[in-house]
């Protein structure tokens, strides 16, 4: 797969004695938006933690741009150009909005995203740049989290449950902004419980069930029945 920017081969993940992923095979092509769906506990967040290096995985299980990144630390993987918008936003509470964004730029990768570009995408952040990040609304915090990830000019960006805990109108705004964010040759993985949203912005989708891939296909090709079977495991 010469076009795959990220590929996982037989990926296992463990929390102590508990195994959360079983031999996951998956790939992300350059410039594509991939959706990962699945019920709570299916392993979606574990998969994100494995890709970003927060969870240790074996050598040869994950490769990025053709290089094995299975054994790298999270900060080394970030330097390679993989960024994440984590579940629950997880801003740095003792940093201002602007500082949260600037810390994203600390990896020093060149690209189109800088403070001005983020402020242009989310003008409200420019107005609030000197506030503590925790004083913002949930939607604005999500904008900071997205901006913070973009500031590293990644070639692959992971969105982990970005609509969780947000008002529907805010979710709509954020999804409306996504195409502008992901354009310019960036690849993305969107982890989402809202299946309709996930399918609407992605070209391909994987469904996880109890740590295994239960369905894989084009976002506009798979049927509702296939999804609910893969999602809930109903025969």
């Amino acid at each position, binding site marked *: 797969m010469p076009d795959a920017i990220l590929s996982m081969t037989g990926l296992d993940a463990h929390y102590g004695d508990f195994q959360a992923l079983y031999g996951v095979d998956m790939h992300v092509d350059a410039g594509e938006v991939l959706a990962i769906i699945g019920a709570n506990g299916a392993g979606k967040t574990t998969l994100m933690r494995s890709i*970003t290096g*927060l969870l240790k995985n074996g050598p040869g299980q994950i490769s990025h741009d053709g290089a094995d990144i299975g054994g790298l630390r999270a900060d080394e993987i970030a330097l390679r150009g993989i960024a994440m918008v984590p579940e629950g936003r*997880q801003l740095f509470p003792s940093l201002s909005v602007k500082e949260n964004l600037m810390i994203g730029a600390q*990896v*020093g990768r060149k690209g189109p995203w800088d403070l001005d570009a983020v402020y242009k995408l989310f003008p409200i952040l420019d107005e609030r740049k000197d506030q503590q990040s925790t004083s913002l609304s949930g939607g604005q915090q999500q904008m900071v989290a997205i901006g913070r990830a973009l500031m*590293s000019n990644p070639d692959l960006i992971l969105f982990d449950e970005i609509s969780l805990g947000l008002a529907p109108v805010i979710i709509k705004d954020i999804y409306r902004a996504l195409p502008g964010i992901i354009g310019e040759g960036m690849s993305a993985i969107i982890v989402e419980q809202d299946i309709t949203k996930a399918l609407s912005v992605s070209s391909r989708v994987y469904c996880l069930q109890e740590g295994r891939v239960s369905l894989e296909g084009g976002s506009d090709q798979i049927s509702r029945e296939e999804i609910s079977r893969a999602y809930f495991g109903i025969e």
Partner: protein
Amino acid sequence: MDWLNAIVQGTLLGGLYALFAAGLSLIFGVMRLVNIAHGDLIVLAAYLGLTVTTATGIHPLLALAIVVPVMAAIGYVLQRSLLNQTLGDDLLPPLLVTFGLSVIIQNALLEGYTADPQKLSAGGLETASFALGGLTLGVLPVLTFAIAIAVIWGLQWTFYQTALGRAFRAVSDNQDIAQLMGLNRRHIFGLAMALALAVTAVAGILLGIRTSFDPSIGGGRLIFGFEAVIIGGLGNLWGTLIGGVILGVAQTIGAQIDPGWQILAGHIAFLIILAVRPNGLFPRISA
């Protein structure tokens, strides 16, 4: 006038205590590490100052140019090679390891320098004084206080105005997410310890000029440092300075009442504040 004198002298003494405490405060703030060996590292810095001044004949304050970078390097190596391995969800391993480190440093100093009390000779600086409105102020205590303010201002500036300080705060807030931003926490912790021991070097040299020292006095400096940090409130460097001043003033007022009460009065002031304000006067982070 005696009482005013006690308060002013105590305030100036508080500057030294704030220098003892600043490194402790910084380390706890960034990585939740309670460094039991901190007092012995202060004494180690004083001995390094002694070695440098006797070997080269330079003034102890000039020796800072050598002792500060050496202590910073020791801090970085210590953190990367030993202390990082002790950090985790449990506070106990770093406590035990730094306690062991304290024992090792004390014994190494005893082996290398003997138990004889030593002093850094700073020309006439130790005894120089000037009159100010009826009070006589020592040049060294005033200089120490000024250095304490400069150091704390510098640390504060580093924390809130530089990329390094931003990294310190980010790692302190959330280590995992900071790693995702490309920050290697082991390196950041190493830099934090280097900075803390650079401050410790300043404290050690000033201690060595002010009083005589021997390998066993680290524990006492550690207590004063802890008390200043706790009084001021965890994670607040200006609070640490105020904590040092309160401790210093309590000691000099205690000594004014009865010379035997000096140390006791400081501890009592600390216990009262701990009872009334368990989080200290100006807490910024919750432990």
